[in-house]
């Protein structure tokens, strides 16, 4: 059982790390701010999500596991909102007319 859980952790955390890599590559390689933003939000939220899910079996406690998932949800909400805000900033230029 324990070995299976460890395997779960290894696979998911590794996958999460790969998504971080994808996010970085997108951030560096994509041509303009909006596409970079697109790549970034997908990648880092998924990356963190996979890391979180991978770690859940390792923390040994339901409450802690829930807190762990709460971290991810929080990042998703605020990440999505900030992405929206940044996108608007990019589209309107840095000082839009009111």
């Amino acid at each position, binding site marked *: 059982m324990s070995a299976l859980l460890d395997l779960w952790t290894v696979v998911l955390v590794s996958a999460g790390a790969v998504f971080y890599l994808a996010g970085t590559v997108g951030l560096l390689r994509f041509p303009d701010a909006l596409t970079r933003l697109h790549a970034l939000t997908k990648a880092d939220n998924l990356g963190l999500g996979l890391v979180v899910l991978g770690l859940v079996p390792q923390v040994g406690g339901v409450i802690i596991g829930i807190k762990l998932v709460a971290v991810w949800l*929080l990042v998703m*909400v*605020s990440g999505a*909102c900030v992405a*929206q*805000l940044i996108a*608007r900033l990019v589209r309107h230029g840095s000082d839009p007319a009111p």
Partner: protein
Amino acid sequence: MTLLFDAALVVVLLGLAAWVVLARNAFAAVAAFIAYGLLLTLAWLQLHGIDIALTEAAIGGGLTGALLIGAVIRLRTAPPAAPATSMTLALAAIAAATTTAVLAACVLALPDPAPTLAPLVADNIAVTGVENAITAVLLAFRSMDTLLEAIVLLFALVGAWSLGADSAWPGRPGFAQSAPPNGILAYLARILPPIGLVIGVYIFWTGADNPGGKFQGATILAAIWLLTMAAGLTDAPRVGSRWLRAALVAGPLGFIAVGVFGSYSAGAFLALPPEAAKPLILAIEIALMPTLTLILALLLPGPPQRTSS
């Protein structure tokens, strides 16, 4: 492996710090500083300072970043200062290198094994009734420093307010915010506060026995309040408001009151009678919490700028 992580962290930290200092673009420097603050949080964890990491996460990740971003954007219109001469740069580099070298020599010369007060704290912590040693130091052994820290914050706020224009006194700090009420910012400012409130109070509450405490909790609450201000959902109070001022001094005055109580019940100012130590520590923290929240939040918008809302 851990040392490898430490080494990588240190390299990135140094690179970011160098970028903060050397970057041409001021906004890039500020952005790098925020990133630097995030990584510093990791460094505190590696150094087993979880309480410090929490403080750094709340202050560095939240308040300082927002403060500096606001400032750098507002200063964009200002004419640039004359750049330093190459002579200055060379001398400054020599001075900086010498400083680093001498300090490094001092670090290498520190005694081994290191002297420490940890055993003394361990011997005395039981009397305070709390389990978090940092809280015991901050609110029992060296509670004077904590009282003074609250007063420092109050001084900084009074100092910042005193910079305002006479015509705006005693008005509201900062500029009016009027975000679209159904915009994404307002959305964020509606869903984050309840969560933030829970987390802030939780961090405060758990601080007696686990890492956390009034200061970290207050920072989180302050950040949340600022968010609602930025979204235009709330407005900064008038600096002339009597209730605001009363709340600003309630914490330190409550702290002093508990201290005076200690001089009657336990024989010394700020002393805590052992049987009531934990409730009194909690009382001090509860008194300080709203004051710290208000001051930390109001330090960002700065002096009063407008007489009406």
